[in-house]
């Protein structure tokens, strides 16, 4: 099977790289299956670039830019994109801020002109800032409807504390309300300069013609030096000590969303891939993982149970997620912790390592079949500081990892006895269950679900 899998590796035509406008990086992958083009323009500055007490500033700035540019009002700009059958959304992550969308291939040049307006010539109209701010605050309110999103919002703070990864990219209310127009616009202009941008395209597009069109459309883009990274981002996050439970109190829950994790490793670190294999065996998106076998298949405790490491330029987290009925939560939590400690202590055997290497190689090829997913992966790898051919040679890198390397990475990077634990549940019910299970009262912090 190994030989067959080798033949099944990514066989895309690969991406070509060119110099982008004003010192930016251009990545293009041509595929003529359908007459559509997927587009990402990513700044190498994400929510980790938010200044202290301005959590959400980067996202706010990009959304404000999207809401009116090139002299077109927001309504005119929206109508112009819609007339092309095109989309353009803001996606802010800890390491990057992206304008991403799709356009019919026949409309690409017109789309580039609008995209350049947003990035190079945003209106930054004061009235639009008020609307944008109002919408983003309402979005944060709405995001609390979803218990998993709610759990993640609290979990990143619990996990990373005051590290720049320790707040949600959407920000927090007080910071969004405090940000001043000049501060917001200045932040955008500092970070959306050519040398800080990745221009990425996939679909029915020809690289040389695109490079020429892009250069023309983005004339006027600043070629100033890229801003230095947030110095706080470069430091190691302070890991949690012991097991401490943050109980996010939401009324009338019948189920608990349970997240646990710890800072683990940078994506560019040699431990990243071997750790990824180990964690895939423990809780990756397969059915034969330790977590799925023990929690779902053997015990029926949960519908899903997962653990993975995030691909970050800074120290990404190993984080687990399981959701289960309130009455099963204590049993599930105890089992998760016990399994994770055993994983840290014993690692995985050679057969398991081989099995999950094969699985990851195949699953990667499957995931990369979608051109938009492939494009996003290429941009993420570029932002995280991985080699330019990382997406295309992922299988080779995985195959090269030995069981010893995997177990060494687990030993170095898994900290199962020092975990941030966040659960969304109804505190009146859950706290009693935890105390009955001999969890110390002082190890439980109860917070209201709508306070952050």
């Amino acid at each position, binding site marked *: 099977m190994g030989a067959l899998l080798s033949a099944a590796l990514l066989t895309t035509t690969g991406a070509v790289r060119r110099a982008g406008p004003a010192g930016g990086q251009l990545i293009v992958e041509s595929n003529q299956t359908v007459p559509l083009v997927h587009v990402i323009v990513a700044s190498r500055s994400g929510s980790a670039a938010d200044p202290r007490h301005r959590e959400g500033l980067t996202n706010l700035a990009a959304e404000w830019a999207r809401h009116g540019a090139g002299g077109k009002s927001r309504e005119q700009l929206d109508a112009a994109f819609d007339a092309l059958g095109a989309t353009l959304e803001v996606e802010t992550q800890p390491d990057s801020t992206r304008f991403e969308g799709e356009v019919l291939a026949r409309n690409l040049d017109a789309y580039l002109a609008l995209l350049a307006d947003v990035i190079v010539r945003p209106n930054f109209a004061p009235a639009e800032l008020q609307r944008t701010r109002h919408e983003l605050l309402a979005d944060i309110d709405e995001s609390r*409807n979803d218990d998993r999103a709610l759990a993640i919002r609290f979990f990143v703070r619990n996990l990373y504390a005051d590290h720049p990864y320790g707040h949600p990219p959407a920000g927090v209310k007080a910071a969004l309300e405090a940000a001043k127009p000049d501060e917001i616009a200045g932040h955008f202009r500092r970070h959306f300069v050519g040398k800080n941008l990745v221009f990425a395209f996939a679909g029915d597009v020809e690289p040389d013609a695109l490079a020429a069109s892009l250069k023309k459309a983005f004339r006027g883009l600043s070629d100033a030096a890229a801003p230095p990274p947030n110095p706080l981002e470069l430091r190691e996050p302070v890991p949690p000590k012991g097991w401490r439970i943050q109980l996010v109190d939401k009324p009338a829950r019948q189920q608990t969303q349970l997240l646990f994790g710890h800072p683990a490793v940078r994506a560019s670190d040699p431990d990243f891939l071997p750790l990824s294999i180990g964690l895939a065996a423990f809780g990756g998106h397969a059915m034969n993982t330790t977590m799925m076998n023990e929690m779902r298949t053997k015990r029926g405790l949960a519908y899903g149970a997962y653990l993975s490491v995030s691909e970050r330029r800074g120290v990404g987290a190993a984080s687990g997620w399981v959701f289960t009925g309130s009455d099963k939560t204590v049993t599930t939590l105890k089992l998760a912790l016990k399994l994770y400690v055993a994983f840290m202590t014993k690692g995985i055997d050679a057969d398991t390592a081989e099995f999950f290497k094969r699985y990851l190689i195949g699953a990667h090829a499957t995931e990369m079949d979608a051109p938009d997913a492939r494009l996003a992966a290429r941009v993420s790898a570029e932002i995280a500081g991985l080699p330019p051919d990382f997406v295309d040679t992922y299988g080779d890198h995985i195959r090269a990892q030995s069981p010893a390397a995997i177990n060494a990475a687990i030993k170095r990077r898994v900290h199962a006895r020092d975990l941030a634990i966040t659960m969304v549940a109804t505190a009146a019910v859950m706290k009693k269950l935890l105390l009955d299970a001999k969890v110390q009262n002082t190890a439980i912090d109860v917070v209201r679900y709508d306070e952050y």
Partner: protein
Amino acid sequence: MAVLALPIFACAAAGRGGASGKVGVGVGVDRGAAAAADSAVGNPGPAPVEVARATFGRMTAVKWRLGNGLDIVLAPDPQATTVSYQTWYRVGSRNENEVGGETGLAHLFEHLMFTQTKAAPAGSFDREMEAAGATANAMTSYDFTAYVNDIPPAELAVAARLEADRMLNLDLRKNQVDTERDVVVEERLSAVEDSVDGTMEELLYKQAFKTHPYRWPVIGWMKDIKAVTRDKAVAFYRRFYAPGNAVVVLAGKFDAAAALDLLARSYGPLPASAPPPADDAKPERAPAAEVRATLVRPLPADRVVVGFPAPALADADRAAYEVAAEILAGGPSSQLPRTLVVDKQWASSVRGDVAPTRDPGLYAIWVQMTKGHTAEEAERIIVDATAALVARPVAASQLGMAAARLETEFLRQLSSSHGRAEALGNFEVSGGGFARLYERAGEYARVTADDVRRVASKYFAGGVRSVVIARPGPGSDGANDDDGNAGDGARGD
């Protein structure tokens, strides 16, 4: 708006299947034992017959039929990196017996089909597939159950062998049924009881449809899920799982002739079965009048969903209806997001979904209000906007925007092997045949202002709508009672 997207419960599995290694006390499903052996030998029976062909741009899909009635749709793409191998059974929640307390059975098979067969012991399906580098999943809707494997091209034979085997040879054990039932209980708690949208959608359909099976949720009522037995499951499997009730769809990187040969050898030996029971669900235009319910949940402000009657996926009105829906709640410049989110700032989000169902379904418009604004304000805007579509023709620019956005969404789904197989499968079982998928792309651009006005008059006029409002509050109104039967505790207005 995701035109081809499936309703909220259609893709009910983010992680499913799995099997206990314990030996249960089950007895194999009798029909399958001989078939398993035959399948391994590989007497393919009569040569496959080509029954239909369709082309869209660079893509061609061809449908074949085997002697036992199995349909096969092949859509090769040399630029793909994988193969999406999907098996669509023409059985969904519409085929369940609500009176008999058997809702949720179709969806339960999304789990049970990963347990074991005579030839494949417990857990071996997932082990073999994952060792081959494949991802295996499943989804259930009102009209179908689909098993979706995305697999490296060189490993196609693994999927063909395992899928052909479990089509007839499932060997259900009591302990596995019990465990998977518990897992589905957890799934329902997550997707319905603790999900405001899940609860609202359940109510939306329940109060809109009076007789049609779309009135009960795909995942099933909690009391029925908890009451499922192995015997009920075996009987359901015998009725609906057979070559003549399925279509295998392959999209991606494969050689069409070799794949057809492989599938013919894998499935050809399976015996033809008696046709499944006649589907006597009578299409219902729903709702027939205005119906309403309210509930209380922990929310920042009111949340509302308004459902209008919608044509079936294959209906001649469908393209025009989708254009009308796109004009109402499609892109950021469409009427409702523009009015409610941008201009008035009464809402933080608006989205619209036209259910891609085999029978007439619902067009649902979801609105999350901002603090200080009520669902009734949004409902008034929605009613006014639909009335405007009835009263006067839309501008050419609106038509052009809607058609262009629908074209983009259409192409986006076809750009991956997985998405293409899913779209072909859904049109084959719910949309009048896979070839209709490729025809749909051109239909949007031909829709006229008169067409939009006509369908608006037909579907939006007369005040008929299903409305569910969630108010902010502690969320202990009992809308999900102990049986998990959403709506029993909600207040109808």
